[in-house]
């Protein structure tokens, strides 16, 4: 039981790869280009492009052509440079090779759910019937698009057990805003928006930021030593000035909030609302419906649970499901199915269908490109597959937790099974080594590090989220590598301080970047 995993062959067929020779052979001569075979350096676009070069063949400008620009013709150069297509493809290919992605290897970035992005999703999103339609096209010509939104809404409502969903939020944080605005609108409709939103210290930064953005004061919810909301303390704080609580469930320590239902009841009892940060929905999708737990509003990151790609920072999509209590306050627009089977968009003009809506959050109707991907994903998995998603995600995380807890500080290891992520801390590290050093050591091993220093409640937090799309062999290899780097960290191996050794760059100087910010290229000497 819970025996440490040894590095070495295992049943799943994974074998440790051949070692880098230790005789220094790899310490080859410096190259004049700075390249190291397939690890290629690449200058900035502005250092290789020219103002006269272009990768499109458009007609030369006819200066004799009269214009109707009212005297605002551009006189100054823009300052752009161009590349031909061969140069462009190479520039970005070389840049891409300096990146890590899920396609390359294990990417256990806790809270971010870096699962595989199915390629059918990409293909479907590119069908001209979806990719090449205008948001303001006459509705008769976009019935299929409206139906996609309708079908996806239906899936989301059924998966969450909630009666309503707002599709327009553009990412998780935008979804939070949507939820909190609906809450504020509901309170306001009752005559008083109230003042305070309660947020646990372990919450993601977007939660307090959102509450503040919506005009609320943010206060902490106390936590128990086992890593969950302290129900008793919370109850004590609840009072009519509290507009809502924002709770992440499963929470950012990777635990299910057992008392969620009681929390919800208590909040409702003082007339407050329960906002659930649904970023971790992947742990329970298809198995548990937030609607059964008393949630009033919850955003869902389609770019996490429903596999739309993260793209190096977005785009995302953050639909928000609402309870009966809040649904009338949800934003515009939304899609409605008419009795004749046609689909209509409820916008400002027909807002009588949602009279108390707090209004519009964004131009047009949401992240359609993500909707087609997410719907494709849901149809692929089905209700049975999504349940399996949650189960495998949780199993993988527990497997990691139990395979590392013997050597790595695991603050909540005794709090029961974890959900989809395992949380560790760096308290036993030797020398002056910390989580950052372990993370950089993992880079050399060929991994993207886990989330570090979040949540804030654990010293040197390491939040490991394997997701369900890793094989056991992949996880076993990761565990072996993690153990090896951990052993070095525990032993105070100072070489870790200089890791990574093999990445395109060694550690970068973040202090210098912030002290004298250089945020755009300029001609040397400019």
């Amino acid at each position: 039981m819970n025996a440490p995993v040894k590095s070495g062959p295992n049943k799943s067929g994974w074998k440790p790869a051949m070692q880098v020779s230790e005789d220094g052979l790899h310490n080859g001569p410096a190259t004049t280009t700075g390249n190291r075979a397939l690890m290629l350096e690449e200058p900035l676009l502005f250092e290789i492009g020219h103002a006269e070069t272009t990768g499109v063949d458009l007609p030369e400008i006819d200066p004799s052509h009269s214009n109707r620009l009212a005297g605002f013709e551009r006189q100054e150069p823009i300052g752009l440079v161009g590349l031909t297509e061969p140069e462009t493809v190479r520039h970005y290919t070389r840049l891409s090779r300096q990146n890590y992605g899920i396609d390359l290897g294990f990417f256990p970035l806790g809270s971010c759910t870096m699962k595989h992005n199915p390629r059918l999703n990409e293909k479907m999103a590119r069908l001209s019937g979806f990719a090449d339609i205008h948001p303001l096209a006459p509705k008769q010509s976009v019935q299929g698009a409206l139906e996609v939104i309708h079908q996806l809404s239906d899936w989301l409502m059924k998966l969450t057990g909630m009666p309503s969903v707002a599709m327009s939020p553009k990412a998780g944080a935008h979804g939070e805003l949507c939820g909190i605005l609906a809450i504020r609108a509901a309170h306001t409709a009752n005559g008083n928006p109230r003042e305070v939103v309660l947020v646990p210290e372990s919450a993601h930064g977007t939660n307090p930021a959102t509450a503040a953005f919506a005009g609320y004061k943010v206060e902490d919810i106390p936590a128990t030593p086992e890593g969950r909301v302290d129900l008793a303390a919370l109850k004590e704080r609840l009072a009519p000035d509290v507009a809502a609580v924002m709770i992440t469930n499963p929470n950012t320590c990777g635990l299910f909030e057992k008392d969620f239902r009681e929390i919800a009841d208590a909040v409702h009892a003082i007339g407050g609302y329960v906002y659930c940060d649904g970023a971790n929905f992947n742990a329970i999708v298809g198995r548990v419906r937030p609607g059964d737990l008393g949630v009033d509003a919850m955003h869902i990151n389609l770019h996490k649970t429903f596999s739309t790609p993260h793209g190096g920072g977005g785009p995302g999509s953050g639909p928000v499901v609402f309870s009966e209590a809040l649904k009338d306050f949800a934003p515009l627009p939304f899609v409605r199915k008419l009795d004749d089977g046609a689909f209509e968009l409820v916008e400002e003009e027909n807002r009588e269908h949602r009279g108390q809506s707090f209004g519009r959050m964004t131009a047009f109707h949401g992240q359609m490109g993500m909707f087609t991907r997410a719907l494709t994903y849901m149809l692929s998995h089905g209700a049975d597959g999504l349940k399996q998603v949650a189960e495998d995600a949780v199993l993988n995380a527990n497997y990691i937790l139990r395979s590392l807890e013997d050597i790595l500080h695991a603050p909540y290891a005794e709090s029961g099974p974890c959900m989809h992520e395992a949380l560790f801390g760096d308290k036993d590290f030797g020398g002056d080594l910390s989580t950052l050093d372990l993370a950089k050591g993992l880079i050399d091993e060929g991994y993207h590090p886990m989330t570090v220093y979040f949540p804030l409640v654990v010293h040197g937090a390491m939040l490991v989220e394997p997701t369900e799309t890793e094989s056991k062999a992949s996880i076993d290899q990761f565990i072996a590598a993690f153990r090896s780097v951990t052993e070095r960290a525990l032993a105070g191996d100072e070489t870790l301080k200089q890791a990574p050794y093999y990445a395109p760059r060694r550690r970068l100087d973040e202090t210098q970047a912030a002290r004298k910010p250089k945020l755009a290229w300029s001609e040397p000497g400019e």
Partner: protein
Amino acid sequence: MRYLPLTDTDRADMLERVGASSIDDLFVDVPAVAQLDGPIRDLPMHASEMAVERHMKALARKNTAAGDAPLFLGAGAYRHHVPASVDTVIQRGEFLTAYTPYQPEIAQGTLQMLFEFQTQVARLYGCAVANASLYDGSTACWEAVAMAGRITRRKRAVLSGALHPHYTQVVKTMAQFTGDTIADAMPAIQTEPDNTGLINRIDDETACVVVQYPDILGRIPDLGELAEAAHAKGALLVVVNTEPVALGAIKSPGEMGADIVVGEGQSIGVGLQFGGPYLGLFAVRNPKHVRQMPGRLCGETVDAEGKRGFVLTLSTREQHIRREKATSNICTNSGLCALAFNVHMTLLGEKGLRQLAAENHRLACAAADRLEKVPGVTLLNTAFFNEFTFQLGGQPAREVVRKLADRDVLGGVSLDRLYPGVDALKDALLVAVTEMTTMGDIETLATELEGVLS
């Protein structure tokens, strides 16, 4: 199931390792009320790629793709030609399946790209610094209003009547909650933008004036005049641009005195996609304002060996560090759309963007000339870039758009769709033209419009 690598044997082995007798043991913390006894009912079970593809293709076929009918729709979303290599690049797994570059040593690809993108946007807008993107133009517009409030410590924003109505609505939605005062207006149907009216609304409490350039009716306001007026009252000028291609032909907002320039970047590289994901652009003319900016910023630095490299920087503005004191709550932004923009803009370059702008304008002029000949139709604009407003002599434009669609022409956006119920705007039709428009398309629209109007 094709996305789930664990085998049943794996699952059994792993359960044993974690000391659980079944998967249910791992969900013990879920209260009984919320435990389901099986897959959620009323939803289909898993399906093969082939079956899903059939389903999705059937839905796609219910839409009229832009390639299948002449298209003259604009109003904040434009159909431009995106070179094939843009998609090649954004489909590289290393870009597509990466996260926000939190580990810069293995994210230089994304970071260098963002640095290039920021430079391109700053130059296009005539600004000093641009950020690494926001969700879209409309949310960027609100972020600009909020930022102007932080800088000026005032809480009143004056919006031009010719700002895209969705943008106006987004700003008003947010302001309901923050307590800001928003002075908005309806667009005045007149040949020139109503700068005077706008200037008259600026007062000493005004944090910013927000104006669209070119505006929702396709007209080109004189930003210099507005900048002067705003600055005279201690307010900032926020300029919104929904068609970046225009800036290949007309002066940049920055050079005309705009303080914050925001916009929609969708025209370059991103595509129509029924409205999203799009690309929020955000830039400031004064580098001192950088620390009040929302969103991520990528900056240059060096690594431990002295090699140049890039990192996300100034994150003390952001939610993950500053929490409730952050400049914005944004986290995930529009990274991959920024890459698409970056690649497309690189293919265009200075020369290509200017040619593209010239070609758009040339065809728009041709379209305006031809459509003016349709009996009953009057062109409102004296000036425009690639979009202009027609009045249909009292005929309801929305009806006309519907009838054109029946004839397989996507003939424009009626102002009634944008400003429902406003009588004065009911007969106005917004027509956009791009390099994708052919002379044949223009002729078809003219002919069918004639048919519909007669």
